[in-house]
C-alpha cells in the first residue's frame, strides 16, 4: 500500500483527512515547499546524503535490543526494542530535523523556526541549526518550558532563541500557532521545521518520509535477529511521527498488527488526557492547517489536554492515522500517567533502560499485551527517546528525597551567589 500515492485522490488527503488549511499569504510558500520536497523525494542522492548524515552525526542505524529479562519475567511474547533513544540529542526527532535541514539548504533559506513540546524537537532543531549555520527560533509553551528545563538549557546554549508562549493553554498547540504567526511574516527567508507528522500538506508526508528510516532499519534488524517478522509493533503517538516511522516498515504485512499508544493522562472519562483515537472524546475538525480528529467541543473550540509527557500533550493526531484508524489498519490504545510511572520503574530496574515519558506509553501497552501472548510470539516497541530530559518530572513522580535535597542545596548555593 502506498498511502502517499495521490493519483486517484486529492493531493495531501488521506481519506477525508489532511489537506492544507492556511492563510492565503502562505500559499506560495507551501507550493515552493511541495515542489522542493517532490524533487528531494525523487532524487536517490538526496536520500543517500540524508542517511549518511545520520550515520555520521547521529549514530544510525540505531540497534534493536532484545529485552531478555523482561520477556522472561512477564512469561509471554519475546520483547524487542528499537533504540531511537541512542540518536544524538536523544530521540527520533533528529531524523526529521536533519532531513528538513538538508531541505532548507535546497530552499536557500537561512532561518529556521520550530515548535516544541517536550523540547526534544526544539533541541534537535537547535543542534541542526548550529551545525548548518542557520538562525533559529524555538517556540515552546510556557508550561512546557517549566517542565522541560534541561532541553531549554541546551537549546539556548546551542545558540537558539527560545520563546515561552503565554497564549492559550501554554503547551504544544499554542507553540504551533506562534510558529504559524512567525511564518506568515518571515516566510521569505524562513523554513518552518514542523516536528511531527501533523499540520498542512506536505508536512505529514514529508515528516513520515524522513522518519521511515526507523521502520526500514527495524524490519531488517528484527528479521536478522529472529528470523521472522514481529506479531505486533507498538509506538507512542503524540502527533504520530515516530509511530509512522516505525510502522512504515510493516504496512504491507497482513500478519503484523500495528498499535499506536496515546496519552491516557488521568484516564477514560477524566477529560484530562490526549487520547484522540483510543478514547471517544475527539471529533473531526480543522485547525492548525489540517483536518483530523481533534479534542474539541461541539462548537469547534479546542479542549484542554493533559499528559505527564509534554510531547504527547496535543489536541490533534496525524491525518494518516485518522484514516488508518477508520479503516481498522492501526489499533489505538492509551496508557495513563500512573501506568507510565510504574512501567518506567520496571524497565529501569529490569533492563537498565530509561525511556522518555513519551516512549514509555508504548512500553505500557506492549508489556501489558506481551504478558498475555504466547512465548513464541514477538513484539517490537519503539523507544523513541531517552528519559534523561525528564529527570525533574520523574524525580517528582518517584518522590525522590535525595534528588530533592540535592536541588534544594543547589538552590541555596545559587541564592548565596546572587547576594
Amino acid at each position, binding site marked *: 500500500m502506498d498511502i502517499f500515492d495521490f493519483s486517484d485522490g486529492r493531493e495531501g488527503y488521506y481519506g477525508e483527512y489532511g489537506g492544507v488549511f492556511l492563510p*492565503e*499569504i*502562505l500559499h*506560495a510558500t507551501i507550493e515552493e515547499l511541495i515542489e522542493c520536497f517532490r524533487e528531494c523525494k525523487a532524487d536517490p542522492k538526496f536520500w543517500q546524503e540524508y542517511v549518511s548524515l545520520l550515520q555520521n552525526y547521529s549514530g544510525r542505524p540505531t540497534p534493536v535490543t532484545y529485552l531478555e529479562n523482561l520477556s522472561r519475567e512477564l512469561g509471554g511474547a519475546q520483547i524487542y526494542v528499537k533504540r531511537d533513544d541512542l540518536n544524538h540529542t536523544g530521540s527520533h526527532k533528529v531524523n526529521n530535523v536533519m532531513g528538513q535541514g538538508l531541505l532548507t539548504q535546497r530552499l536557500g533559506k537561512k532561518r529556521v523556526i520550530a515548535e516544541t513540546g517536550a523540547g526534544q524537537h526544539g533541541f534537535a532543531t537547535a543542534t541542526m541549526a548550529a551545525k548548518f549555520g542557520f538562525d533559529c527560533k524555538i517556540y515552546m509553551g510556557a508550561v512546557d518550558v517549566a517542565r522541560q528545563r534541561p532541553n531549554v538549557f541546551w537549546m539556548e546554549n546551542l545558540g537558539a532563541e527560545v520563546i515561552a508562549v503565554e*497564549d492559550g493553554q501554554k503547551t504544544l498547540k499554542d507553540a*504551533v500557532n506562534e510558529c504559524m504567526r512567525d511564518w506568515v511574516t*518571515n516566510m521569505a527567508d524562513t523554513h518552518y521545521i514542523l516536528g511531527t507528522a501533523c499540520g498542512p500538506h506536505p508536512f505529514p508526508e514529508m515528516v513520515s518520509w524522513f522518519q521511515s528510516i526507523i521502520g526500514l532499519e527495524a524490519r531488517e534488524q528484527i528479521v536478522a535477529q529472529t528470523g521472522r517478522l514481529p506479531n505486533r509493533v507498538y509506538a507512542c503517538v503524540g502527533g504520530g511521527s515516530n509511530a509512522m516511522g516505525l510502522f512504515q516498515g510493516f504496512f504491507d504485512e497482513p500478519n503484523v498488527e500495528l498499535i499506536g499508544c496515546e496519552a491516557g493522562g488521568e484516564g477514560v472519562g477524566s477529560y484530562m488526557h490526549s487520547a484522540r483515537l483510543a478514547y471517544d472524546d475527539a471529533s473531526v475538525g480543522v*485547525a492548525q492547517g489540517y483536518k483530523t480528529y481533534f479534542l474539541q467541543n461541539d*462548537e469547534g473550540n479546542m479542549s484542554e489536554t493533559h499528559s505527564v509527557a509534554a510531547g504527547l500533550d496535543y489536541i490533534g493526531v496525524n491525518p494518516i492515522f485518522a484514516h488508518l484508524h477508520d479503516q481498522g489498519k492501526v489499533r489505538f490504545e492509551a496508557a495513563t500517567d500512573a501506568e507510565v510511572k510504574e512501567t518506567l520503574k520496571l524497565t529501569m530496574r529490569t533492563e537498565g533502560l530509561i525511556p522518555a515519558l513519551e516512549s514509555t506509553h508504548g512500553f505500557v501497552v506492549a508489556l501489558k499485551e506481551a504478558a498475555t501472548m504466547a512465548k513464541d510470539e514477538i513484539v517490537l516497541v519503539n523507544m523513541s527517546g531517552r528519559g534523561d530530559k525528564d529527570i525533574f518530572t520523574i524525580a517528582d513522580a518517584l518522590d525522590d528525597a535525595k534528588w530533592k535535597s540535592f536541588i534544594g542545596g543547589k538552590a541555596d548555593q545559587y541564592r548565596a551567589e546572587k547576594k
Partner: protein
Amino acid sequence: MGLEAFIAERKQDKDLLVMAHVVCGYPSFEDNLQELEIMAEAGVDLVELQFPFSEPSADGPLFVRANEQSLKAGTTVDQCFEFMKLASERFPFKVLMMGYYNTVFKMGEDVFVRRLKEAGGVGYILPDLPVEESANLHQLSADAGIEPIILMTPTSSDKRLAQLGAASRGMVYVVARKGVTGSKTNMGDDVVALIDRCRQHTNVPMGVGFGITSKADMDFLRGSADLAIVGTAALKTWEESGAEGLRRFFAELLA
C-alpha cells in the same frame, strides 16, 4: 441588497468606505454594542463580527487575547448569531462574519449559511479556508445570496490572483502586507501596485486591511482602494480610552 450593490451605493457620495471589526463577546457584548453605536454614528459602512476561536493563528497578540478572553467568558456561536441579528437590524451598516473555518465546519456549511442569512449577515471572511476547499461553501453561499470574501496577498502570483479573482464575489480583501493582524503597515507604492495587480483579476470592490491606523493611511488609500479595513487600531483605542477615545478615533479617521 447584496454586498457589491451596497458598496456601489455607498460609494456614490464617499470615495473611500470603512470596514471595522469587533471580536464578539470581548470585552463583553455590552461593550460591543456600544462600539457599534459609535461606528454607526461615525458613518462606518461595514463591520466584521469575529466569532472567537481557540486557535486564532492568523491573528496578532491583541486579537489573540480578545479571542481567548471571549471564550473564557463563555461566548457561544448562538450568542454571536443573536448579536449579529441585533446589529444587522439596528444599524445602517452591513455586517459580515469573520472567523476560522472550524467554527463553520463543526456546525455544517449549510447550517452556517442559513444562520448567517437569518442573522442578516451579507458575507463572511474565513482566513484559513483556501479556495481549493471552498467549492461547496461557495455554492451554498451563491444559492443564498451570501458573499464569501476572498483574500488577495502580496505573495500571490499572477496565476494565483487569476484563480482567486475567478472565485471573488462581493468584494476582495487585499492583505496589505505579510504577517498577522495588529502591527503597523507602511503604506507605500507597493500597496498601490498590489491593488492594481489585484484589479487586473476581478471587478469587485477592493478593501485593504492589515495595519491601518490613521487618517494618513486613509488619505493614502483614497483613489486606489474602495474600502479601508480597520481592526486592531480600533480595539486598541477602545481598551486604552473607552467610548470617548473610540468616538474621537473614528471622527479623525473619517474626517
